[in-house]
Each structure stands twice: as structure tokens, then as C-alpha cells.
């Protein structure tokens, strides 16, 4: 049996919530073996160093403070390695702060803090687009083919505009809150804070697709 190793960038933020969700996906995958489902095992690991990036099949950049995560990513050399692997086709998913880092362009707030982005996806991001914490909210969303997903937004960013091959997956209140571009996925909300593993499963599906392409 083959193992899919999914890395969660563990510099700062809600790392354990993603790891727990991936464990749940792994359990589902294991149950589906022999029922025509995937026969791959899911292993979730923390990515703290450059060498950890080399060892994973896909990477999740969790929620947290994008200024802090960006600083630590560039200082440690992890950012360059992620860009390199992503260029070779490694699937990458950013939630909230992770979405900010995937953007090609930032708004005034991003510029103000001098935050360096990974520039992997063709969109412009607006930080804290929904306001401060007291405006943080829960709402049901349709995300691409996933219906009624319980989305938790925390001081969430939003995508101001997309271009090129970047595709909008979900909007809320007129703002773009999920997008996809080839093997890259970005969500302004936190599927890892819900009990619903469907977005995680959707992301894992990209690993198979990447290998078929090769």
C-alpha cells in the first residue's frame, strides 16, 4: 500500500487542527479500501524545516498570523523550497493566513507590514477584509461542488480579484473566499475548525491528479 504524506506547515497557527482533520481523512480512506476507493494511506506530518518540505507529497499552510508565518518562512529558507516544489507540481493549500501567502499581489495592509508573499496564485488579496474579531462569523457556503459547507471565518482575508488560470470556487457577501489554480487551493475560512472533512478530502484528491499528469 502506498502512503500519501501530507505536510502541515508548523511555524505558527492552528497546525494541530489540520493534523487531526487529516487523521480523520486517513481513517475514512482506510475504511474505503476494498470498496473501490483509494488504497492510499494518509500520513500527516509537521513541516518545520527545509528538509521536511522535500519529504511531503502535498503541503497545507494553516491559519495563524500571516505576518508571523511569512517572516519565519522566509527566514528559515522554507519559502524558497515551497516555491520550488510547488513549481514542480506539489499541491499546496492555504487556509486564511495561508491564502494571504499564496497571493501574487497584496493590498495596502500587506504592503504596510512589508510582508513577502509566495506569489503562487493569480489573485490579489485583501487582509482582514471582513473586519476585526468581533465581526468574525460562521456561515454555510457552497464551495465548488461541495454544498452547504459550515465555514468559520476569523479576521478573514478575501480575494479582491483573480486573473489568468485562477478559478473562483466560492463567494460570500460578494467577496471571493475560495479559489483554485491547478494544484493550488486557497480558502479564506477554516475547514479545519469544522467537523466536516470534505474540503480536506477534495485537496487530497489533487495528489492523485498530479501523478496522473506525470
Amino acid at each position, binding site marked *: 500500500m502506498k502512503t500519501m504524506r501530507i505536510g502541515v506547515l508548523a511555524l505558527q497557527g492552528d497546525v494541530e487542527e489540520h493534523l487531526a482533520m487529516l487523521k480523520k481523512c486517513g481513517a475514512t480512506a482506510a475504511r474505503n479500501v476494498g470498496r473501490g476507493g483509494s488504497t492510499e494511506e494518509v500520513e500527516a506530518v509537521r513541516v518545520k524545516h527545509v528538509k521536511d518540505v522535500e519529504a511531503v507529497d502535498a503541503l497545507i499552510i494553516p491559519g495563524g*498570523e500571516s505576518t508571523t508565518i511569512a517572516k519565519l518562512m522566509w527566514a528559515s529558507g522554507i519559502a524558497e523550497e515551497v516555491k520550488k516544489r510547488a513549481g514542480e507540481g506539489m499541491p499546496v493549500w492555504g487556509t486564511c493566513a495561508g491564502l494571504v501567502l499564496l497571493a501574487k499581489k497584496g493590498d495596502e*495592509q500587506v504592503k504596510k507590514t512589508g510582508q513577502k508573499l509566495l506569489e503562487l496564485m493569480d489573485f490579489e488579496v485583501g487582509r482582514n477584509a471582513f473586519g476585526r474579531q468581533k465581526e468574525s462569523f460562521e456561515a454555510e457556503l457552497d464551495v465548488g461542488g461541495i454544498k452547504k459547507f459550515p465555514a468559520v471565518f476569523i479576521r478573514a482575508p478575501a480575494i479582491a480579484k483573480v486573473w489568468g488560470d485562477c478559478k473562483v470556487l466560492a463567494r460570500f457577501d460578494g467577496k471571493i473566499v475560495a479559489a483554485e489554480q491547478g494544484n493550488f487551493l486557497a480558502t479564506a475560512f477554516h475547514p479545519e475548525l469544522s467537523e466536516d472533512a470534505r474540503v480536506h478530502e477534495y485537496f487530497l484528491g489533487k495528489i492523485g491528479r498530479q501523478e496522473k499528469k506525470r
Partner: protein
Amino acid sequence: MTNVKTGTQAVKEGFARMVKHGVIMDVTTGKQARLAEKAGAVAVMALHMVPADIRAVGGVARMPDPKAVKEIMRAVTIPVMAKCRIGHFAEAQVLESLGVDMIDESEVLTPADEESHVDKRKFKVPFVCGARDLGEALRRIDEGAAMIRTKGEAGTGNIVEAVRHMKLINKQINELMRLKRNDAMMAERAKIYRVPLALVQKVAELGRLPVVNFAAGGIATPADASLMMQLGADGVFVGSGIFKSKNPEKFARAIVEATRHYDDPRVVAKACEGLGDAMKGKDVRTLAGHERMQERGR
């Protein structure tokens, strides 16, 4: 918009989850807040004076001036927290109206109510509260706190009390895990801790507090941060430790680095190197009973 819910427990506790593995720094001005943000803080805590100065000056310590809070909010893009007095729900209302991202109902300020804490479920803004043991932590969570921190002994630069509180909480959680299947003992624990049985059961099931738990109250060096992280803290608050040190910028960066790589002594060693003097600090044993902030609000 239909079906949009703000101020839910999931949104409040979720906010606390986003600051995990990070350092939250006490600041009194916009300038200090910018220094903290630049050094990699995940959030700043606005207060009128750092705890070491509160100790030195004496008198009644209250919430910060709204003007200073607004200045700090304008200065940075990271979350801004602020302290209110224990039980002072009007101060909490003021801070919420200013738009701070989290309120610390803190024993560092002079308590306003010696019987009750703020009813935190009435607010949309999340709260963090201090605790010395599992009972205090669970009572605060039952009142609606979205995050817990050890009380330690603020403004002393002495880690001994934070260590005591973190170890005690861990020990009491381990006890609950052992008692998990003993209904009578679990009910007794709930009674001792003065919280619903369901909350005690949840802790036994999870093997940890159900909300994020930071260390606070005495962290003054990178090695202190590493120590608390190794004892199981989800992150650290640094109060006087940064702006009472000889070189705040260096200390701020070094503590962020040591918190991130707490389990790698070589990185912590590098963070500690050539930092200059940490805050002077105090032997906690020399404090008189009324000087011990941790006794406030149980």
C-alpha cells in the same frame, strides 16, 4: 445575509487557535506595538503600564486609556488585545466597543469584583483568563473564556510560579484521565472544581484543556519560553520581559525564535546569545501576601 452568526463559541475559540505557537507581547504605546509586530509577535496586549511598573507604582491599576488602545490598533495589523479588571464588565464593554480582538480579564489589574468574574458569554469578543490550577481554568471556561493562560506571578521576571501552575494543571488533567471510567469520582471532581460534569468529562476525553492554553507571568528570557513550551503551553505571553530588558528589539526577536524552536536547544542557545541584561526581576518569596497578583480572582 441569511444564517450568518457572529460571536459564537466556535468563532471565539477559533481566534485563540490562530495565535498558537506564537508570542503575545505587552505594549503601552503604538511605537512599542510596531516593534513587537516587526519582531514577529502574533498579537499585542494593550495595557496602561507593564506589570513590573504596576508593582513599582502601586495604587489601583485599571484598563488602558481608550486613546492609547486606538493608537495601538492603528499602529499594527496583527490582533490587539487589552486588559480589563476582574469582574469589571463595564470596562470589558468599553474595550469591546473599541473593537479590540480579545479581552484579558486580568489579575494584573486591581480586581473590581471579589465574588464574580465577567459573564463572558454575553460578549461577542473572546476572553482570555488566568488560572493557577485546573479548577480555576474550568470555572473560567464555564463562564465563557475562549482561552486560558497560567497566572504565574506577573511583573517579577521569575518563571517559578508559571511553572508551578502549568505543572499542576497537567497533573490534574492526568488524574482526570485515570478517573475517566469512575463515574462517582468524576462527579466528585466536578463538584470540587464547581463546574458541570460534562466539562470535566471533556477534559478527560481530550487529555488537555478544551481551549488554547498559554503560559504567562514571569517569562523573561528565550529559555523561559522554551521551558514553558516544553511543559505543554500552546504559546507564551511576555509582559515586562521585553520592554524592561536592556534591548527590547533583540529580546522580542529572540523569544519568538525560542518559542518556535523550543525543542531545539541549539536554536534556543543562539537566541540567548549576547542578549544583554534581562529584566532584573524579583524573588517571589519576598513578596508580601497582598503583592501576590495570582491570589486575585479564583
